[in-house]
């Protein structure tokens, strides 16, 4: 085990190991071959190692990247298609939603589409309205797709390897704000996968459940530290890791323990993944008398170019902390979680 591996290196190792393990795995996308090695260098070195037939630079054609990936997948290949930004996947929506996700069904189970669509994106880099969106909810809405959004290098590598081995089309959404984060990852060649559809409790707590994924998980952990220090509130942080199918069992188990839920993501709050989770938890926990649920998400506005305006639109640690405090106050719970909360309230 190495304890300080970059997320981008963990992702590259996953691709490298799966290509070495399985001849059928090949990569396709814009600018992914050497010397460029991908706009974010995730595929750097792989075309040199495996040849340009297995790491294919393609024309700027998102429809054809996804569509040809679908075609290759049904012949038994295991294509990993890179779409440079999740925003550009909009161009290929029909191929993703009505083709990749439907062909198993429309063929009566005769054909399967083991296609991974890697894309990256997200706010926080002043990349403006067309290069910063968190569009996971669009794919979350589609039966037949899986949507994976890791938060740590360990999870990223294990989930990408699992996605490549999965027989369903998988949207593998890498948040670019995480590419330079570091964390423990097993040694190269030590084969492990992280199962799709399983959440991970990144921090245990008894007072409130914070459900997050991708970079928001890191903000949730920071929020939890702050809440512990300033309020004496012990937050449990559930990292979904896979957004669809999401791990209802783990979320509900945590919620039944804490009785309070904050679902947090950087995607627009309206119609977001958080809305589905909040509603489901509410429906499933009707037997609980004292239930508090809140959502944190982006404002219903395009992502501004100006950095100080972008910060207003996109939530992070502070918004999670505020949502937890509001939720617990609404539920009259601060008395239950200690004097520190009352002191904090008095100090404000």
């Amino acid at each position, binding site marked *: 085990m190495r304890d300080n591996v970059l997320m981008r290196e963990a992702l590259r190792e996953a691709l490298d190991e799966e290509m070495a393990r399985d001849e059928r795995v090949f990569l396709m996308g814009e600018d992914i071959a050497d010397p460029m090695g991908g706009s974010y260098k995730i595929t750097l070195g792989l075309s040199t190692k495996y040849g340009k037939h297995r790491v294919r630079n393609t024309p700027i054609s998102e429809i054809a990247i996804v569509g040809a990936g679908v075609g290759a997948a049904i012949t038994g290949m295991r294509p990993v298609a890179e779409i440079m930004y999740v925003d550009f996947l909009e161009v290929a929506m029909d191929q993703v939603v*009505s083709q990749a996700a439907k062909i198993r069904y429309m063929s009566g189970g005769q054909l399967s589409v083991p296609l991974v669509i890697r894309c990256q994106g997200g706010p926080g880099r002043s990349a403006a309205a067309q290069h910063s969106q968190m569009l996971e909810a669009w794919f979350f809405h589609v039966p037949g797709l899986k949507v994976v959004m890791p938060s740590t290098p360990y999870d990223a590598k294990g989930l990408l390897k699992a996605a490549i081995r999965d027989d369903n089309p998988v949207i593998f959404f890498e948040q670019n704000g995480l590419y330079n984060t570091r964390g423990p990852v097993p040694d190269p060649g030590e084969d492990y996968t992280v199962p799709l559809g399983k959440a991970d409790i990144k921090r245990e707590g008894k007072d409130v459940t914070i459900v997050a994924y991708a970079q928001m998980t890191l903000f949730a952990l920071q929020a939890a530290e702050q809440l512990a220090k300033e309020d004496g509130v012990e937050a449990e942080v559930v990292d979904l890791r896979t957004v669809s199918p999401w791990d209802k069992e783990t979320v509900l188990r945590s919620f039944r323990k804490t009785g309070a839920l904050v679902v947090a993501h950087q995607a627009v709050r309206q119609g977001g993944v958080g809305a589905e989770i909040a509603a489901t938890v509410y429906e499933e926990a009707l037997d609980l008398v004292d239930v508090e649920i809140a959502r944190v998400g982006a404002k219903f506005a395009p992502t501004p170019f100006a950095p100080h305006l972008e910060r207003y639109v996109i939530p992070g640690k502070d918004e999670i902390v505020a949502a937890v405090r509001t939720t617990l106050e609404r539920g009259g719970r601060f008395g239950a979680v200690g004097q520190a909360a009352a002191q904090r309230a008095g100090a404000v």
Partner: protein
Amino acid sequence: MELLRVIDGEGRPLREAPCTDEDARALLERMIFLRAFDERAVALQRQGRIGTYAPYRGMEACQAGAASALSPEDWLLPTYRDHGAAMIHGLPVEEALAYWAGRVESYRAPAEVNVFPPAVPIATQIPHAAGIGWGLRRAGSAAAVLCFFGDGATSEGDFHEGINFAGVFRAPVVFFCQNNGYAISVPFSRQTAAASIAVRAAGYGIAGERVDGNDALAVLDAVRRALQRAREGGGPTLIEALTYRVGPHTTSDDPSRYRDPEEAQRLALGDPLERLRRYLAGRGAWDEADEARAQEAARARVAAAVRAVEAMAPPDPADIFAHVYGAEPLFFQEQRRRFLAELESAARPGAGGPAARGPAPGGAAGGPAVRTEGGGR
């Protein structure tokens, strides 16, 4: 661009045929079968026994001619109007008919028959064809891909991206455009300012050819040569087959609202079956007894398919969740369990609700989604 013709509108030979009389006879028999299927399907729709249907009348030479050029290992990607070609390539007749009856288990080609599900949204299959071609090449297969689409599809982005892709990677694909003159009500002159579709091949750096799509021998010849080129590493070919959609877009459409009934005569493409019939008769290779035998065989084969489809048990409600995922997620299995439990409790004596009536007659999910009025092309 020159229009390839092997026989003229009266069935007179213009050049050497690409096949023996025996092969041409088999081709005519296939076309007779395709027409019998199409006529019966339209009748079944009118009787309310199947759903909306997209007839291919007048396009039998394209479908039988092109599909007859395929080897068994080759892939065929049909649209909703190309079940004729799909049946020639080995899709069971029952499966083709069951599709139009809205059966979820329809259009399932046997494992050894490489027929893709029909593309109903327009041009989406063109990038797939490029990818299938890649996959076959990487697997070391000598098989090639035949991708059907219509003139309307050439206005979609998928057409441009898919053909360009296939050209760049020299994928072994034959792009076969049936230019039947109409995308629902919009004539070809409103799809492109170009004089033909085949000329566009030059813009993609691939081979292009234009054939008389009502001349089955010309279609067979052009597609056979293009498949050979693909197999030999010569890259894709764009073939434009000029034909005419004699019938409506679908059984929900009335073409008399938007086109002149005399138009078909003016085009002088002739009936594809009649042209091949005259050609063979002129060579002493087809007579009335042959015709009667072929007609009878075709009718019997279609009738057997109708019986088989109508004898199918009503679709199982659980089918709505079938084949959505490989290795189903837990929540998905739970969804099915809950649904079936609800159905069961509603079906108990005294229970009400729509589920109590049991499975709906006719279709389940997964059937044809051909848009009717105001949609689909």
